[in-house]
């Protein structure tokens, strides 16, 4: 904690003992910024795919569809019969036949608007909302096949599972990317700090000679690299978040693509990126400095 306080309080004199390094300082700044920018996207991907997995898992699990496939003249009667069966089925909260207008809307992306639905043998869809433990698909199928020959029950589990699995895998990849970015930041800062320590071997020797402790010398380097990484990462994070905000909104039609981004408290998560990058830089520079100093008298 004391070391952290010293980092932010600073020591103007201690900062001056290490010569300024211009170009390489900007490289550290740039690399930290670029990594933070990428980290924001990896986080957006992880959080969004996590959210999708949850939404798909929950919403689809709580609903089912009954499809009435029957000649046009029997369709209305069979729909009525199916609704009656559903009303007396355990685990069904409500069942509702979609109207022509709603079905038209569902088909519009494929057949275009203004489709003359009444002349087509389009199956009638019944939206079933489940409650409690949900319904028993096997029992319901038996009852439906006895009373409504044209009814087909789709409880969504068939196509829900791979979607949820894909979203979960995507989330895992996002987190792995975030971790890799963190490790790359550590590697980059270590290299930069190592180079700075090597370039300033004479400065370090002079400081040791006049009675500077290892902590004092290490702090001069740690402070410099931590602040650079923090600053670069802050800039990269801001740019990354702006880019996420500016992602084009695909509206209703876009489906899950519109989900990429942050929602609610998730906006706080990318703000942690600069702090974590700073912490990684702090640890990496400290380790590099201690390693180098141990070899000197």
């Amino acid at each position, binding site marked *: 904690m004391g070391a952290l306080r010293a980092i932010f309080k600073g020591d103007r004199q201690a900062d001056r003992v290490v*010569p300024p390094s211009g170009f390489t300082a900007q490289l550290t700044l740039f690399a930290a910024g670029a990594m933070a920018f990428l980290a924001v996207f990896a986080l957006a991907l992880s959080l969004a795919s996590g959210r999708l997995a949850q939404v798909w898992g929950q919403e689809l699990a709580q609903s089912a569809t009954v499809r009435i496939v029957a000649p046009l003249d029997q369709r209305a009667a069979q729909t009525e019969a199916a609704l009656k069966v559903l009303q007396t089925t355990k685990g069904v909260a409500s069942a509702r036949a979609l109207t022509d207008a709603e079905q038209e809307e569902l088909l519009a992306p494929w057949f275009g608007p203004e489709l003359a639905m009444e002349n087509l043998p389009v199956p009638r869809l019944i939206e079933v909302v489940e409650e409690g433990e949900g319904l028993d698909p096997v029992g319901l199928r038996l009852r439906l096949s006895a009373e409504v020959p044209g009814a087909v029950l789709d409880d969504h589990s068939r196509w829900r599972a791979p979607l949820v699995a894909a979203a979960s895998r995507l989330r895992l990849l996002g987190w792995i990317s975030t971790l890799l970015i963190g490790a790359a930041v550590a590697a980059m800062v270590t290299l930069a700090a190592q180079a700075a320590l090597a370039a300033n071997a004479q400065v370090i020797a*002079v400081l040791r*000679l006049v*009675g*500077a*402790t290892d902590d004092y010398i290490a702090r001069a380097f740690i402070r410099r690299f931590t602040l650079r990484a923090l600053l670069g990462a802050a800039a990269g994070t801001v740019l990354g978040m702006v880019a996420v905000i500016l992602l084009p909104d695909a509206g209703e039609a876009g489906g899950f693509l519109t989900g990429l981004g942050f929602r609610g408290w998730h906006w706080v998560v990318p703000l942690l990126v600069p702090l974590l990058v700073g912490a990684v830089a702090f640890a990496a520079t400290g380790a590099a400095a201690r390693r180098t100093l141990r070899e000197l*008298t």
Partner: protein
Amino acid sequence: MIELENVAYSYGGGELLSDITLKLAPGSFHFLTGPSGTGKTTLMKLCYGALLPTAGHLRMFGADVRGLGRDDIALMRRRVGVVHQDVKFLDHLPLTENIALPLNVSGRQAEAGGTDLEELMSWVGLTHRADALPPELSGGERQRAALARAVIMSPDVILADEPTGNIDWEMSQRLLRLLIELNRMGKTVLIATHDLSLIRATKAHVQARVLRIANRRIQLAGADL
């Protein structure tokens, strides 16, 4: 102050120094002489903890150096002023900051801007060079700056390794007078040099003992000087 007891030091090959017993008492003035390559610098380095003896015991201010941690050595160096043969400064900082560096690294920044520093600068005759960068200084100026840096913490011991190595006679006389003055203030002084005329010139002013390194051992040089 600094005590060596049967100290030996060997580099990878053979033994450079062996069986050295020496005691630098408070307020004493010693010269260390001998042909180059006999281990004068090595002995100096042993005395400020840059090297550890390979045998025997070396005590600084009563503590055995082998038992000291890195931070203890750092603290110890604040009590020992060292003037190197090839003085190293921080080349990007002006002279005053270089001279005040020991104060800064030991957390005594407040004194770095004080009148003591100004007095010290004028004592070594470098007031007019205060803002110069170390690479701009002449050999004599560097040596005097090194002495100023060595004494700014008011150390108990001053170790000077060939302090007059690359400066002219007049300048080395001046530097030596500064060291004699410090000794009169009660500081322990050890100067390594191969310049016998310098030793002779000094002996007129101060009670100095001359140590000679020969055959890896140290001897008290006699009246031949």
